[in-house]
């Protein structure tokens, strides 16, 4: 008991090593080093590049959709079917194959071992498989673009019965490939997820207590646990829908007469699928939000040179949000024909989640309060996140209430809401995080001016795109409509507004190539970054080499003496104290009293 460390202040005694140093796998060839690599850092980069590549496909699809909405009929190949296919693939790719993969597979892999002072993940071999199965899932998804009737157009929610009925685009092969790809994704993710969880629980450095972990790790860890419990519902839903489609079972299919013809289905429950889907789908929102929360906390503390306000509260808020998000799923089903009492229950839990979330926002603001704010690109993106997330959270309050939601359901208001809260906000964090860790990953600085330009275009542009959509939604413009045609209640001004949104979307999309260019150009031409350009406290900045070598640390693993937020400590020589710096004589004296 004497060796247990309480709290997160600097402690003099660090317990002896409990875990034997792991046996590292040493690659022997170029292929095992860079292709079939078992090093979490390489896997992280593979995950990130794949996710970004498929993310650009989704971005391109959003261009096509926007072009259709602003200039209906201008592009001849976009008919109603094609439009459905675009929204489906755009939505699914963005949520699952880009955000989930990038936050957990990308940042999780890179940061967990480094921030915790481990040499690698707990199971490097399974970690490698995880990436390759993810890649396979992506390829299967992409393959559906090349089938005869194209990818599925069921909407990213894939609701049956229409998802598998004849006359839905992609009914033949598209939906099958989509479901198979999702199942593969889940299997691959599980292999990685087990790694992240076990490494956080069992593989930390000496002195790295749970309450000394950077909030980034808390966010990624909680999100991974959630994903391991939420993805099973999607997996089961996908398997059952595959059976409905391929074997003719009727899990989700009621008796249906289509075009005067009685189909062979009967007796199934479409609502059951909705429950399974949203039992996954709502936690999914937080699976991408919690890592973002964590990363933003660290970006803000580092670039405002201040300790995070209310660390303990922040940790508890992450855990509580994670737990609560498993009992709110049916707020997506207010108009599905559930028992109204359910709506009451789920509206209540939904509003309760706002409390820990609001605490986090207050704490970020209080961290910034009177901080020494450096407006570096990571900081700009972090502030951008807070604003957008707050915005999306407030509209969420509207949609969470049954009576307010019913008229807003399936309008552009919903599109605006979820793009703010889970589209733009996490993407801003991803950019901020990439800029923040780029110097560690590559050893070079990016171009600051380009990065700032990228930020302003993206941030302001996102507002110009999605803010007017709230208004369109209030006017009653429905979501998932490929054109409004001559609709009486729609004022003519919306046409101009739609054109404005589309042009902004094209500009914002193009601005992402600034980012790409910056990343590639700086690889060669950026100025050398040194080991710790942001003067940050966390362990990944204290590695002996930059970029970190195989095995991350030299012969000795780091020993941790303090929490991750010792910035601007009064009396300290520097305005930051790395986590692995032993306590000073003053600190030692204070700890003793």
């Amino acid at each position, binding site marked *: 008991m004497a060796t247990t460390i309480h709290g997160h202040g600097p402690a003099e005694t660090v317990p002896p090593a409990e875990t034997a140093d792991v046996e590292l796998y040493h690659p022997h060839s170029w292929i095992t080093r860079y292709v079939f690599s078992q090093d979490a850092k390489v896997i992280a980069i593979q995950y990130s590049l794949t996710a970004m590549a498929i993310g650009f496909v989704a971005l391109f699809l959003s261009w096509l959709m926007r072009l259709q909405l602003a200039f209906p009929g201008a592009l001849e190949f976009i008919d109603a079917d094609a439009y459905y296919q675009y929204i489906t693939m755009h939505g699914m790719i963005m949520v699952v194959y880009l955000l989930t993969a990038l936050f957990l597979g990308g940042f999780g892999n890179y940061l967990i071992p480094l921030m915790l002072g481990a040499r690698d993940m707990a199971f490097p071999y399974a970690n490698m498989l995880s990436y390759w199965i993810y890649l396979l899932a992506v390829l299967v998804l992409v393959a559906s673009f090349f089938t005869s009737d194209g990818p599925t157009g069921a909407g990213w929610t894939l609701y049956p019965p229409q998802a598998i009925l004849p006359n839905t685009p992609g009914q033949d092969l598209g939906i099958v490939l989509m479901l198979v790809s999702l199942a593969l994704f889940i299997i691959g993710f599980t292999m990685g997820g087990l790694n992240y969880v076990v490494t956080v629980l069992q593989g930390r450095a000496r002195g790295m207590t749970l309450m000394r972990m950077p909030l980034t790790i808390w966010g990624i860890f909680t999100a991974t646990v959630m994903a391991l419990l939420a993805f099973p519902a999607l997996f*089961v839903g996908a398997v059952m829908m595959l059976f409905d489609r391929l074997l003719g079972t009727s899990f989700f299919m009621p008796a249906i007469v289509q075009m005067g013809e009685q189909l062979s289905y009967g007796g199934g429950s479409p609502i059951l699928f909705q429950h399974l889907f949203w039992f996954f789908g709502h936690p999914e929102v937080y699976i991408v939000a919690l890592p973002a929360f964590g990363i933003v906390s660290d970006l803000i503390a580092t670039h405002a040179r201040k300790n995070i306000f209310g660390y303990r509260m922040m940790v508890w808020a992450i855990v509580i949000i994670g737990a609560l998000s498993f009992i709110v799923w049916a707020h997506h089903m207010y108009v599905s024909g559930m028992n109204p009492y359910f709506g009451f229950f789920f509206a209540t839990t939904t509003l309760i989640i706002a409390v820990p979330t609001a605490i986090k926002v207050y704490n970020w603001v209080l961290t910034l309060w009177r901080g020494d704010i450096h407006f570096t690109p990571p900081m700009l993106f972090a502030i951008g996140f807070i604003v957008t997330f707050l915005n999306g959270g407030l509209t969420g309050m509207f949609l969470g209430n049954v009576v307010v939601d019913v008229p807003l359901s399936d309008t552009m208001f919903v599109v605006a809401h979820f793009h703010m809260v889970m589209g733009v906000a996490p993407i801003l964090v991803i950019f901020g995080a990439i800029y923040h860790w780029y110097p560690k990953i590559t050893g070079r600085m990016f171009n600051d001016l380009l990065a700032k330009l990228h930020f302003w275009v993206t941030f302001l542009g996102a507002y110009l795109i999605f803010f007017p959509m709230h208004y369109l939604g209030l006017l009653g413009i429905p979501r998932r409509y490929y054109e409004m045609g001559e609709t009486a209640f729609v004022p003519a001004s919306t046409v101009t507004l739609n054109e404005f949104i589309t042009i902004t979307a094209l500009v914002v999309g193009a601005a992402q190539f600034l980012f790409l260019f910056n990343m590639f150009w700086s690889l060669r031409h950026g100025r050398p970054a040194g080991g710790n350009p942001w003067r940050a406290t966390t362990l990944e900045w204290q590695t002996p080499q930059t970029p970190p070598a195989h095995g991350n640390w030299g012969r000795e693993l780091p020993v941790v003496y303090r929490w991750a937020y010792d910035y601007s400590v009064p009396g300290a020589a520097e305005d930051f104290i790395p986590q692995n710096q032993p306590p000073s004589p003053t600190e030692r004296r204070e700890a003793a009293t």
Partner: protein
Amino acid sequence: MARAAMAPTQTALPRQARWRGMIADWSSDQRAFKGVSWGKAMMWVFLLSDTFVFGCFLLSYMTARMSTVEPWPNPSEVFALTIGGAEIPLILIAIMTFVLITSSGTMAMAVNFAYRRDRRRTAILMLVTALLGAGFVGMQAFEWTKLIEEGVRPWGNPWGAPQFGATFFMITGFHGTHVTIGVIFLLIIARKVWRGDFDRGAKGFFTSRSGRYEIVEITGLYWHFVDLVWVFIFAFFYLW
């Protein structure tokens, strides 16, 4: 063992301090679960996730069964066998359940012998476990064949709600796949034990590190889990 020597100090503490001690231990550095290896922790987390998979399957089955308007076929008639002229309900399932539970016993013994480095007995007991598991899958195949011959299909059956066949094939199929994977793992690891891989530090199973006898116990965790899941399937599908 070292851990046993530490135990007595805990008993004297008042309850609140014990709680605080537990939380402090749990959140202390390096490991949240003291004395639990990475492999074992991984298996536990995986089983938690897999529990959700089976949970979703079973809940979906219950929803289907409760919401269908057609009558649900009576399991004790459907799953009866005529032996010597008498119709015995659920006899095959009873035997299958017995076989699977027995295999958990042999598995537990294998774990015991593995930690004693008794390679021969460990390997033999693992083989016996695998055989029992294969027997289970075999009987399941027999049951499937019989039902298919009687006209049960995923999309319909002669007695009532089509969801009966759909959920039956899906859930037992998914469980059977788990058993089959378990049998394959058992065989691979039994072979490694037999050859003495874990004494020589040769590469382990599903890793590039050298394997340890602990893998027998980890496989055992999986095997007992699959067994436990069967008890739930048995209760909810056959007895309901």
